[in-house]
């Protein structure tokens, strides 16, 4: 009896990785999925916090894809390991802070480790030559294969015919003729293939798979790095950058202002790590203060807090300032006038 060959597929939740896995499954290979959580994935997170997003159906696309394909999915937390990829990418960043090429190399390398630990035979990705300007070009394909250490264990079923033969093809586990030769940015071949497989519901992420391609998000990350004087971060930082308005009135502190109740509840969870402010005489948002603030700074923070609540036109607003130990004091302030609140404070 011939040995059942096994492949691990990098599943992002998008259509391409789904089609790549499906193509290989059709050839009788046992496929399981792997999905890496870097902390910046658009998945889940984004929708969970804001009330207005709660009505929208929420699903984790990678889990959904795995379920559609009928395969197992292993989600791996790579938050810590990913730091060195993002902080110091050998191949640099894309349009924003996206280190796509290093990211791909890292993920394929991690998949290769998984392969060895789980006695699987080869790796599948949904990469397509020419699909993305930074990481999916003809000349980056061999770089990813080589620098990840995966070499010819890495099969890209969607564009394999345009690439050198890989081990699974050479060994006859996979029939090269049944692989594809897609190139370029057009999505038509993938859509046709989806229709052929009877797949009609799939997610089409616009820019990429993560927040690192988002202009507003990365501006906040750059600000964070500047403020702390080093390119480092913790998971909590990464999460908080997705929430609220971020306002920096001075280099040494910033404020995170909840935009609505859902965000307020989320920020509540951080009251032991940050000083927080909340108007008590009027309704208003919860505000967290990140940094070291003097008494003057706190007063300014209270004035800003007052400006975002229903007391914005009032002469006096009472604002409770609570420190990390839960010690609370109330100050009475006049909301900061618009003229004294420069737009540049918004990050």
């Amino acid at each position, binding site marked *: 009896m011939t040995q059942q060959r096994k492949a691990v597929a990098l599943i992002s939740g998008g259509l391409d990785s789904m089609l790549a896995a499906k193509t290989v499954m059709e050839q009788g290979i046992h496929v399981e999925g792997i999905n890496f959580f870097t902390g910046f994935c658009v998945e889940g997170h984004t929708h969970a916090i804001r009330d207005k997003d709660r009505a929208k159906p929420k699903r984790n696309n990678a889990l959904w894809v*795995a*379920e559609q394909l009928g395969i197992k999915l292993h989600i791996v937390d790579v938050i810590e390991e990913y730091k060195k990829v993002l902080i110091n990418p050998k191949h640099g960043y894309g349009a924003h802070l996206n280190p796509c090429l290093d990211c791909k190399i890292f993920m394929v390398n991690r998949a290769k480790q998984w392969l060895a630990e789980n006695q699987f035979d080869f790796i599948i990705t949904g990469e397509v030559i020419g699909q993305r300007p930074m990481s999916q070009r003809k000349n980056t394909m061999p770089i990813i294969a080589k620098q990840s250490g995966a070499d010819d264990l890495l099969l890209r079923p969607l564009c394999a015919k345009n690439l050198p033969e890989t081990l699974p093809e050479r060994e006859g586990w996979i029939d090269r003729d049944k692989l594809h030769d897609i190139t370029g940015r057009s999505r038509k071949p993938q859509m046709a293939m989806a229709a052929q497989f009877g797949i009609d519901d799939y997610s089409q992420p616009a820019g990429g798979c993560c927040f690192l391609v988002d202009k507003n998000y990365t501006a906040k990350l750059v600000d964070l790095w500047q403020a702390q004087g080093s390119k480092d971060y913790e998971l909590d930082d990464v999460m908080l950058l997705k929430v609220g308005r971020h306002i920096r009135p001075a280099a040494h502190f910033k404020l995170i202002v909840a935009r609505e109740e859902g965000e307020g509840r989320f920020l509540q969870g951080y009251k032991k790590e940050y000083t927080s402010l909340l108007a008590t005489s009027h309704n208003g948002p919860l505000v967290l203060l990140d940094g070291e603030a003097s008494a003057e700074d706190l007063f300014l923070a209270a004035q800003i807090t007052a400006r975002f609540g229903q007391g914005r036109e009032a002469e006096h607003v009472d604002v409770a300032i609570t420190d990390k130990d839960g010690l609370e004091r109330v100050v009475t302030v006049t909301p900061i006038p618009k003229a004294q609140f420069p737009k540049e404070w918004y990050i």
Partner: protein
Amino acid sequence: MTQHTLNTRRLLCPLPVIRTQDKVKSLQPGDVLEVVGTDPGIMQDIPAWCRINGHKVLDSHSADHEYVIVLEVGA
């Protein structure tokens, strides 16, 4: 059969799923795990993860912005 609980409060998806996955690895078939969290996403994601991996959701409910999934570890 033993009962276990897992606190995923404050974590956002997919972290509660990852923590559940890692916890289940240390359990035996038939064991029951109660996952508590604050991200409503777990109401979809953990059952989806259970379906894929052959575990059974025994109960799910929510109150006061907390979400609870009770699952039985499959074979």
